[in-house]
Each structure stands twice: as structure tokens, then as C-alpha cells.
């Protein structure tokens, strides 16, 4: 396999052909914030947090789906990118009802972490306060749409790893929401195997284990990694 060399923030990096800019950055220890990316499932390039500047193009490119190329020069943290990332996170906070203080994921939430990472001390955008539902019909889990950022990690993990395709996205635009089955209560969807992968995949407190209260959500992210490695490389031990 051939190797490509590129520069990220001025640092030389060599990585195998076909790798993404995000993988290259991680290998080099350059932090790029992400929300919709999840190792092991396909990338959708939807959250736009991982946008980077690549010399030679005026367009900002999502690191998660942009393949490395020979001689590529990438900037991951220019003032413009910092500003746009912060705005993106502010937009996410203003779109849902994210009340960290009463959330199961407080202290263990990727949205909260990203807010800190991008330096968001407040949202300049008006909170929308949408009227969203909570579904606790499943015996073990619940989904609180107020906390959902529509990253679709649950949709992909359920389809691509578990193979159950319980979830999908319904409606469009601001009305989009994660739907289970034929818009049925989650607990009534036959396809659900109660495997809990969506709980582990959810970056926020939107999908949670019932019975956990503020700040108690824990997720075993390593389990998903393990499963993917096991299937792809046939390594069935941790």
C-alpha cells in the first residue's frame, strides 16, 4: 500500500493512501472536534465541526470524509475555523433543549466537551425551545429528543453494526427527528434487540439507560470499537 505525505498545521505526516484527513490528524495528535463521526460506521459529514482548510481550494473540507493526498497542506485551527466551529456549536445548543444541569450526560457529554473545546461561553443565537417528546416505552432505555443533535450515530450503529435498523430520520429540516420503526414507541418496535449500542453511540444524553439520573450516564465507547475491530480484523479478544 502506498503512503501519502502531507502537512497538517505545518507538521509533516505520512499515512497510508485512502486514509482520511481526520485519521491523519489523529495520528499526528492534532485535535479536530467531531460529533457525527463514529469509528466503525460510515461517515456522513453532517455536523461540519471537522471542517479544515486545504490549500488550493477555497472550500472548507470535512476532515472525516476527505482523503489524504500527496503534498496536501491542511490547516485545522485558523481563526475562521475557530469562529465557524463555535457558531456551529451555538447553533446546536440553540436548536434543542440542552439543559446540562439536569441531563444524564452532564460531565460525560460530547456536545458539552465540544462547547468547551471551541470556547463557547454562551450562545449568540436565540434558543428555539422546540416542543419535543420523550419516549420511555422501552423497558431498559429511553430517548429524550430534547437532547438530540441529529448526528445519526444511533441510526448508523443500529443499521451497520447491529443490523436491526430500528432508527431512521423522519421529516425534514428543523422538523427532523429520530424515529423508531413506523413512528412507534421504541418499546413496540419488533426489530429492536435491546443491545444498547445506540446508548453507547449517542454523544449526548438523548439516548440513555433508564434509572440513571443527572450526570450518571456512562457509555462503553470501547465496546463499539471492539466489535468493529473484531469483525474487520477477526480479533475477538479485548
Amino acid at each position, binding site marked *: 500500500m502506498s503512503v501519502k505525505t502531507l502537512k497538517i498545521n505545518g507538521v509533516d505526516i505520512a499515512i497510508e493512501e485512502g486514509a482520511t484527513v481526520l485519521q491523519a490528524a489523529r495520528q499526528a495528535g492534532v485535535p479536530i472536534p467531531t460529533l457525527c463521526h463514529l469509528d466503525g460506521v460510515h461517515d456522513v459529514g453532517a455536523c461540519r465541526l471537522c471542517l479544515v482548510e486545504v490549500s488550493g481550494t477555497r472550500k472548507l473540507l470535512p476532515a472525516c470524509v476527505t482523503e489524504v493526498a500527496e503534498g496536501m497542506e491542511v490547516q485545522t485551527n485558523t481563526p475562521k475555523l475557530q469562529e465557524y466551529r463555535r457558531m456551529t456549536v451555538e447553533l446546536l445548543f440553540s436548536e434543542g433543549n440542552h439543559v446540562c444541569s439536569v441531563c444524564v450526560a452532564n460531565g460525560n457529554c460530547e456536545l458539552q466537551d465540544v462547547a468547551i473545546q471551541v470556547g463557547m461561553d454562551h450562545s449568540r443565537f436565540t434558543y428555539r425551545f422546540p416542543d419535543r417528546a420523550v419516549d420511555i416505552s422501552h423497558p431498559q432505555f429511553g430517548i429524550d429528543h430534547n437532547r438530540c443533535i441529529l448526528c445519526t450515530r444511533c441510526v448508523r450503529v443500529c443499521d451497520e453494526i447491529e443490523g436491526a*435498523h430500528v432508527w*431512521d*430520520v423522519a*421529516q425534514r429540516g428543523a422538523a427532523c427527528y429520530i424515529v423508531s420503526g413506523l413512528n412507534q414507541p421504541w418499546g413496540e418496535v419488533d426489530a429492536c434487540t435491546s443491545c444498547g449500542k445506540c446508548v453507547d453511540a449517542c454523544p449526548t444524553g438523548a439516548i440513555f439507560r433508564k434509572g440513571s439520573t443527572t450526570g450518571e450516564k456512562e457509555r462503553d465507547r470501547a465496546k463499539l470499537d471492539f466489535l468493529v475491530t473484531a469483525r474487520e480484523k477477526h480479533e475477538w479478544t479485548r
Partner: protein
Amino acid sequence: MQAVTKTTQATPKPAKSDHPSGDRRFKTLDMTMKRHQYKPDALIEVLHKAQESFGFLEEDVLTYIARGLKLPLSKVYGTATFYHLFSLKPNGAHTCVVCLGTACYVKGSNKVSAALEEELGIKLGETTADGKISLMAARCIGACGIAPAVVFDGTVAGKQEPEMALAKVKDWELE
């Protein structure tokens, strides 16, 4: 054609996908799905046919399609709700679609829609409580040359003043 011969057999054996209700409209769906070789890619084509035959997409129909095309339920629901033309609720006996495209907007279609909303006591996108009239908005029906345009039960009417549209709708109300 095969579907027709099947029904004329002495002891008709229902095809696997047949709907237990025996509703003929499901047969139409079967034929559409068969024409597309039950490929999951045909979902939108089949939804169009279902909407045409049933008037709207009820749960039963969506489940039937999901089974026929071997698709997850959530995917069928997600796709059906993505597109404006698919309706999961029944429409009124009459439909009145106000075009809100740019040319119509510049020529005052918002006044037409406001007048209709007031007359019918419903908002765009809603159906009157008696199920008689659905009031809808279109992004652009491409009849910009005769703006503002309104579509009454599928027939395009151009250069509409609020009074003209009201007169038409009032006729329906009297029916």
C-alpha cells in the same frame, strides 16, 4: 397480466404479499412492486402509487410496502415523511393549493392565501374539521406567467384575486 389470471383460477392461492383485507387497492400496489421487481429502490414509485390509490399513506399501507420491498419500517417512514407530496393524513374532499412561488408572491399571493385562511378558519397545510377542504401551499407550480396562481382540485387558475379564490371555495362549502 399475471395477477389477473391468478384471480380467475378455480382455487385462487393468494400471493405471499397479498393483504388479508382483500382490499383491491393492495393488488395495485402488488403490481407496481412487481413491475419494479420488488427492488427497495422503487420505494418512492410505490409510495406514489399508494398515495394515488389510497389518498394518503396509512400505517397499514406503509407496513405492507415495507414488507413487499424488504425495507426497515423506519426507513419507509423516514422517506415518506421527507417528501411534501406524501401525506400521512387523509386530505379533504376538495383541495385548494395556493402557489407561493416568487412570481406569485410578488403579485400578491399572500393576500389570496390570507383571505382563504380567514374564510376557512384553517392554516395552510390543514384540512377543515368537516373534512371538506384542504388548503395547501405550493413552492412553485411553474405557472409564473399567469401569477398569482391557485390550483383548485388539480385545475390551475391564473391571475387570482382574493375574491375570485373565495368565490370558488364558497361554492365548495355550499355543496
